[in-house]
């Protein structure tokens, strides 16, 4: 097992506030890592640093061995990233937007068309392919963002809340898609839906107040509470005040 994502002592401070505090972990090919934590815990900031968008205050992140700061273009070529809120250009059509991303990624001609079609197929966007993104429902918009991240079949996928705003059927489709891709890729997904972690993730990291407070398989994590429910464990470890935890 080779680690495709390596994060070492990553720290981000905004003024006096420490959003991400000394976070280290690595993700190997075949792993689906569920990134959990309350709002404001530092999940998105960690993912943004991993994607090279936010510059870390300290520490390093590597994707397929490429440092995201010093070798950022190489790192980004091997990364599929779905940013928080799945932003897309509202006036572009679904196909137009995906073609733009494919061109930036260096595809041309027939291969470009094939890539775009494959991404549309995987995310079942065929019915809205010519519609401007701004006219789509929240679930479709999310899937356009997802299609963009899958377009170049990257070895590393970092998805910030990929199923937010999807209906139960769509959630199921996206989870099936992630599970299908899992063997060849290293995938990180952030989510608030704990059942999702149990359904698709092979490993879960819980982050609170910018620190990693748990790193285990979903089953292990669930067994830490007498009830055996992930919800209870999550509440227990993320509600503790940060100072008490540091002392313990």
């Amino acid at each position, binding site marked *: 097992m080779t680690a495709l994502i390596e994060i070492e002592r990553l720290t981000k401070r905004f003024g006096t506030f420490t959003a991400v505090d000394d976070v280290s972990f690595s993700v190997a090919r075949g792993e689906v890592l569920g990134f959990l934590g309350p709002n404001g815990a530092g999940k998105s900031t960690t993912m943004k640093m991993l994607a090279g*968008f936010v510059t870390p205050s300290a520490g390093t992140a590597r994707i397929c061995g490429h440092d995201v700061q010093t070798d950022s273009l190489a790192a980004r070529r091997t990364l599929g990233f779905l940013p928080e809120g799945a932003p897309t250009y509202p006036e572009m059509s679904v196909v137009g937007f995906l073609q733009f991303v494919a061109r930036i990624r260096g595809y041309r001609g027939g291969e470009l068309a094939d890539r775009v079609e494959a991404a549309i197929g995987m995310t079942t966007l065929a019915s809205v392919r010519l519609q401007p993104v701004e006219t789509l429902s929240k679930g479709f918009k999310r899937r356009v963002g997802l299609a963009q991240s899958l377009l170049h079949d990257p070895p590393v996928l970092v998805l910030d809340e990929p199923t937010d705003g999807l209906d139960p059927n769509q959630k199921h489709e996206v989870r099936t898609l992630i599970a299908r891709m899992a063997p060849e890729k290293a995938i990180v997904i952030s989510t608030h839906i704990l059942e999702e972690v149990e359904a698709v993730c092979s490993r879960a990291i819980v982050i609170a107040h910018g620190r990693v407070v748990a790193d285990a398989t979903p089953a292990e994590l669930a067994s830490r509470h007498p009830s055996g429910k992930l919800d209870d464990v999550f509440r227990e470890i993320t509600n503790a005040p940060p100072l008490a935890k540091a002392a313990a």
Partner: protein
Amino acid sequence: MRTTLIVARRELGGYFATPVAVVFIVIFLALQGVLTFNLGNFFDRNQADLVPFFNFIPWVFLLLVPAITMRLWAEERRLGTIELLLTLPISLTQAVIGKFLAAWAFCAIALALTFPFIITVNYLGHPDNGVIATGYLGALLVAGSFLAVGSALSAATKNQVIAFVLAVAACFVFAVASYPVVTDFLSRNTPALAGFARGISVAERFQSFTRGVISLRDVVYFASFIGFWLFLNTVIVEHRKAD
């Protein structure tokens, strides 16, 4: 280079996918028409040239160019698409230049659509079309300068109104820097700055183009002016992108 053009093409397509392009071009042409023919006394002057047309163009650009640039980066930051754009495998410089080129190409299209003025003046008399050509080149460089200023200031805020007002104010400074009001005031108080103010003025440089003169100094001035503001643009985006 290819990547820069892909960014530019998407951006330019964005203008025409929204009413921005049509509104801008119609207002630009209407303003230039009214100003040239009515305020500029195009007919009463009885001279076959486009001097009134070129006299007004920096002022029209002063008002309209910031309307193009205000959304350039502010909108990306507001929508969050900046996170998408800057995590694709492109450099920040490519993104900045691509967006600038799109806005510049758009201004060039608007300028090209003023061709009826050239037809009119050629129909009525025998103008020096070489002078008209250099005037157009100068106008394009003025547009580029204002675009570079506006683009950099657009990166400094998420709010498009603030981006617009800041850009108009900054462009105004570079437009009036060589005017007597400014230079007289400066030579009375700080003489050293008077020459400097004339040196950085966009309007002053543009004047020589409208007289049919292309001097290397002026071309270098415009190139370094645009280059400086685009450099500032990348610095501001890099610094503020994640805020």
